[in-house]
């Protein structure tokens, strides 16, 4: 069976009309969402935005990762300071252009805060059905050989 309690809650939150953050202030959520959307962009395939990664992060910070709340608070404040330094006319991360967002994240990519948001974004995307599908996993409880090209080839007596 795929998915545990955390995922059903995340899916419910992202699909609900009246979805609400339990930990984030909505304005901060929009900023983190913009960062996650550069880590795993919604380009020609689904990314962090359509997969609802922000809901995963919100529920994680209210649950297993409560000890990361301070890192998010401090890290976001520091990232806002960096944004104001790089782009004085801007008022939010979400309001930056894509190129500006990438430039900002490159400036902070070595920080613990960025590494934590990257980890959460990866878990929130690749840990759920959308991510499995993206990497080509057809999730089933049962497979039969051959599993891939080379064992199929060997079973046919092919290339050695």
């Amino acid at each position, binding site marked *: 069976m795929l998915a545990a309690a955390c995922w059903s809650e995340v899916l419910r939150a992202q699909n609900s009309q009246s979805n609400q953050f339990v930990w984030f202030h909505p304005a901060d959520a929009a900023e983190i969402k913009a960062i996650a959307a*550069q880590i795993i962009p919604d380009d020609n395939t689904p990314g962090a935005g359509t997969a609802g990664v922000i809901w995963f992060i919100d529920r994680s910070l209210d649950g297993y990762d409560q000890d990361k709340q301070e890192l998010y608070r401090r890290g976001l404040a520091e990232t806002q300071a960096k944004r104001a330094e790089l782009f004085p006319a801007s008022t939010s991360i979400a309001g930056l252009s894509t190129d500006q967002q990438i430039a900002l994240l490159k400036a902070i990519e070595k920080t613990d805060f960025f590494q934590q948001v990257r980890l959460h974004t*990866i878990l929130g995307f690749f840990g759920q059905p959308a*991510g499995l599908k993206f990497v080509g*996993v057809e999730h089933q409880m049962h497979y039969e050989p051959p599993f*891939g*090209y080379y*064992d199929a080839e060997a079973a046919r007596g092919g290339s050695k």
Partner: protein
Amino acid sequence: MSMAQFHPTDEVDFIVVGIGAAGGVMAKELATAGFRVVALEQGPWRHEKDFKHDEVAVMFRAGLTNDPKKQLNTFRKTPADAAQQQQAVEYGCMVGGGSVHFTTNYWRFHPEDFHERSMLGPVPGADLRDWPITYDDLEPYYTKAEWDLGISGLGGSNPFDGPRSKPYPLPPMPVKSSGVLFERGAKKLGLHPFPAPLAIISQQYRGRAACVHCGYCEAFGCEVGAKSSTLAALIPAAVKTGRCEIRPKSYVRKIEAGKDGRVTGAIYFDTDGREVFQRAKAVVVCANGAETPRLLLMSKSNAFPQGLGNSNGNVGKYLMFDGGGFAFGLFEHPLNEYKSVVVTRVLHDYYRSDPKRGFYGGGGIDGRFDYYPAGFALAGMPLDGPQWGSEWKREIGQYYTHMSGSLAHASCLAVEQNSISLDDKVKDAWGLPAMRVTFKNHPDDLKAADFLMERQKEILLAAGAKKVWADQSTLGEMTYSRHLMGSCRMGDDPKTSVVNKWNRVHDIPNLFLVDGSSLVTSARQQPTATIQALAYRLADYIRRGASL
């Protein structure tokens, strides 16, 4: 028959602390032999229906392992450093222990592993020592373990293995693309790959259903009971005797000892946090290579002011970790390594120590790609490329099903200062001293891992990989391990070891330890078969009438 229930004031024959790979063997063998057993397990009792394909919960949130947020560790490289709070050990935390979540490589150690010191001489900066037993002493018990648990493999296919008295009970698992390519590359280089012996049943066995190739073996619990954990293969038989009571969520804080120098039972916190003292005639500690020494050190009494088995200060010393790096190989066609078991081909050509290489050690090498999607995204892509953004994302999507790879299981030398001890400041969630881990690799450990990494890359390239690279996070000095060995060494001399050759604590006749802590050397990792063989041997010794 329903499970036995004993009262704490009943003096049962044995308490088994930790019912994992070794404890499961002890509980089943002792109860079957007629002894009354209480097994105290700190983790919960999960069943097949409780296991799920959830990478985040299992791999990133301690779903089946010790919880670093409650069971705090501290870590330092050397005794001169200040220990910092960080997770340094990971182990299966449930009825069945590590045998539930392990990848299931089930090698025997080689005959020469038991007397490398005599063969090679001393290694400066380490304490390489012979075991007090030989491969021949253990061989009947390796065989017993393989047949009792259900191991799939092809006896005689590894030319470097010791002699076997019986074949494996089950044929090997079907070869995967990673195994086909590994065999292709290895044979081109003149090496000797063989079908991996695995603790997974390839066919129905003793009432258990065969593997369905779902792909969630490593770190996960098997949802169909095809993994030959003690949970699936032995514990039902232990319970069925009516003489074994398993108490999950029981956190042992002390083995109690009397004035006469014998142990009398164990004190633990039950599910509700209440302290319980269970009496017993004898105690077997199978709590793993990290928790066993911690428990002995916490068990201070008037008779044993330094803790149990520690009269000569050896408890916790000579801790060994699981070395060896991971090499990635990208191939032209899809392998779909997310299906079926992790490893289907292995080689031991570089296992033996060769003085010509200029360092002690070597290793076994697996053909495998055991990264679940989030783990691959986190650490799998080459470090000279981007680690986030559109291009990185596109490459992950293209690579994942086309990946193979190779993991080395490298030697780790015993060094006296590498140890488990009690932290003098940090406490766990029960108010007990946190485990303090001191570990710094011997330089030869790193040379062996680097040497093997070059061989791993050669094999992948010979197999036709378009691109190979190392997971850099798996190389270099280790600060974290899942295989915990050597911290209560076995030996004939009480001055330099903790247990004798029968796994009995030297100065306490009714206290036994059997798990990774007894191992004198790390051999080339994958210690579960040897740990379980030691447990079968100890149980047989007790059954045949060892005085307690």
